[in-house]
């Protein structure tokens, strides 16, 4: 692997970070960038990119594709963020429990992780979402449960590695409480591994959640969402291919950017 020096960032990472920043702005302040609200105009229908007033054209309901994509950011990324965050919280709690205490809690938690790790995530999420009525947060919950075992293992092994170091022993002698030791001393030392995995989880979650919404699970019709937009846009493929192409590109580029930034962190931390 090429090892990037400190302070110098490869171009790819810089571009990716800039793109993610833009995505973040779309997520937090969609009203800044998109006209509100999304107006349906059935007399207009799908017009191609470059039509007056619609840079990327409109979809078959006459909605502006650019606005739709910007507003779709929230639905496309909130779930993946929640998945990554939720799975890290579970990973931290169960992983530290297992790593710190060892013994029976470790055995139970490790077996739990082994078992859930072998389950097909997307398959179970699809079945669960379609049977339970396709709720967005139901799919998120299922994926948190199935993503977490990896974080559990990661945190567990990191905690075990830190546990026997001298500074922890001195902290124990000082009779600092377990939660305090975990939070103040161990957590900062494993934060980088967690951060890397956080990014990887976001990228995977983005792909999984958009697969579900592409199948029509989890998001209501008419909602702005990239997966949904890609599926709906297929109907207007001849009139305005940009309706689905934009959404497809948004998913692919965001996932790539997240992976690039995640990989960068991981390389930095393995060096440092």
């Amino acid at each position, binding site marked *: 692997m090429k090892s990037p020096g400190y302070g110098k960032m490869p171009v790819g990472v810089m571009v990716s970070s800039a793109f993610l920043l833009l995505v973040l702005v779309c997520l937090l302040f969609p009203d800044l960038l998109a006209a509100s609200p999304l107006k349906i105009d059935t007399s207009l229908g799908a017009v191609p990119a470059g039509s007056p007033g619609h840079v990327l054209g409109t979809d078959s309901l006459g909605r502006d594709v650019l606005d739709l994509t910007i507003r779709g950011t929230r639905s496309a990324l909130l779930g993946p963020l929640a998945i990554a965050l939720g799975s890290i919280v579970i990973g931290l709690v169960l992983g530290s429990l297992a790593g710190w205490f060892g013994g029976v809690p470790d055995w139970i938690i490790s077996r739990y992780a082994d078992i859930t790790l072998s389950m097909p995530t997307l398959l179970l999420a699809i079945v669960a979402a379609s049977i339970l009525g396709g709720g967005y947060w139901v799919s998120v919950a299922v994926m948190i449960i199935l993503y977490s075992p990896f974080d559990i293992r990661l945190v567990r092994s990191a905690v075990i590695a830190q546990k026997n170091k001298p500074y922890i022993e001195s902290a124990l002698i000082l009779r600092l409480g377990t939660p305090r030791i975990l939070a103040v001393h161990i957590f900062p030392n494993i934060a980088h591994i967690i951060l890397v995995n956080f990014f990887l989880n976001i990228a995977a979650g983005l792909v999984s959640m958009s697969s579900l919404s592409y199948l029509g699970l989890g998001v*209501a019709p008419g909602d702005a969402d990239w997966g949904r937009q890609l599926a709906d846009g*297929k109907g207007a493929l001849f009139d305005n291919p940009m309706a689905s192409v934009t959404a497809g590109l948004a998913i692919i580029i965001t996932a790539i950017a997240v992976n690039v930034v995640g990989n960068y962190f991981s390389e930095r931390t393995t060096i440092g």
Partner: protein
Amino acid sequence: MKVMKTQKSAALRILSVAIAFMLVFALSACAGEEAAKPDLTIGVSGTISSLDVNQEAGILNYQLAALTQEGLVSMGNDGEIVPSLAESWTDEDATVWKFKLREGAKFHDGTDVTADDVVYSIERAMDPEQSPGVSIYFPDYVDTVEKTADDEITVTLDGSHAGFIWAVSNTGGLLVTPKAWSEEAGAIGSPTDLIVGSGPYKVVDFEPSSHVTYEAVDTWWGGAPALTSLRVDFFGDEETRLLAFTQGDIDFALSIPVENADNWEKVEGATIEYYPERSYYGLTFDPTVEPFDDIHVRKAVALAVDKESIVSGSILEGHSEVASAITPPEQFVAVLSADEAKEQLDTITQYNYDIDAARAELAQSKVPDGFTTTIYYPDAYKNAGEASLAIADTLLEIGIKLEVKEIPLEQWLNEVGDGNQGIAWMIYLATTAEPGEIVAWLCDAQGSGINPANWTNEAAAEQVRLILSAESLEAQVPPTIESNEIAEQEAVYQPLWWGEAAIAWQEGVTVKDFTSFSLLSPDWPKLFT
């Protein structure tokens, strides 16, 4: 350096091996033996899991069954009743029906069609256990079904019912199978027990969600069809079907949704024909659900629906007709021309888009500030989904928040009229040419569970009774119009549009005399020459 170079060439060697492998792979794949191409490949949207209409009675099941199976009578190309397995029949006061069996009709397994087979098939069709699909088409007014001679079947009803003839047609509920075979077969109509009928084609191969192939038989009483082999391909979505058509993989496509049809028109050499599919698309307001128990709410919502722009705008692209009533004019084809029917239907009370009037109605209601409710549409009907979003958009202007949700078609069918939905879609594709077919259900206002609106109205229910006991199809017309009128006065249904569909075919295929009835008539392969 030298080492590096050899390494590189090693990598190159690996690469060339890979390319060679790919080529072999592609070649061996291309060399897949070309099976005999069928005379005609038909692309249909959606899929079926059983060829037995008794088991699964979707419109597609009926259309495919019309190729292989027959009833005592069938529907002709213009919606008229024509003889099928019954050569002729008599009805005494529309009460005692005697059918004379055609001589020389044969099943695909080589056996003769006998009166016993017909009686067995009617009994099977009436049994809700064996025939969950069609038993509802066998009205509860049938008293007895008997074989009264070797070639005669007599059905006695509890009164006069002119509409009974549809029950023994292939579009209603009777598709005759051999008795002996049916009793032996495990899962009738499945790939392991391919359906056996007496029609112009026999099924050769059936793979659910992939295809069905048919072969013409020379034993059909109507003569051998022009095309000897047919193949029907199922498509999960419209886009793939269009692509297959563009590539020339399918020759003929039926029931193309009009919102996609403009894309089909762009295919070189293709011919697209639009036809009214005799369907009703509209909103149902359930007067047993808050706040739709208030007629002002129902009228306000009805007035806030811009059906003109749904039909003429990008949702339907003008390829459907704005509905002025529930029953489509083409439904009267057996007794009235579409224009004559339209004239009568236009006299019925209308709610045309008028946002100020809608606001005024809502102000008089018990929820003057608006409310929030949900509408569900079946996933197979994308145009209903888009129309729902457009309706939600205009309803918001008068303070009503309408949430739109997509559900699977099957779930939607199950939940029609379940008493939980204040506003709901009603989509109805008529299978017969009985003028009263649609209102006989929608306006049968005997209370909850009888009609999809759970509506109670003695006057409307009385009109439906008149329809059901009519001695002729002509006699069904006045009560049909009248029950439409009552429904509109009460604003329980808001008709939106009468649907059209399209068919498309490639250069080299000739389709003639196509009507909305063609696909259900047993000689639909005769369309192609």
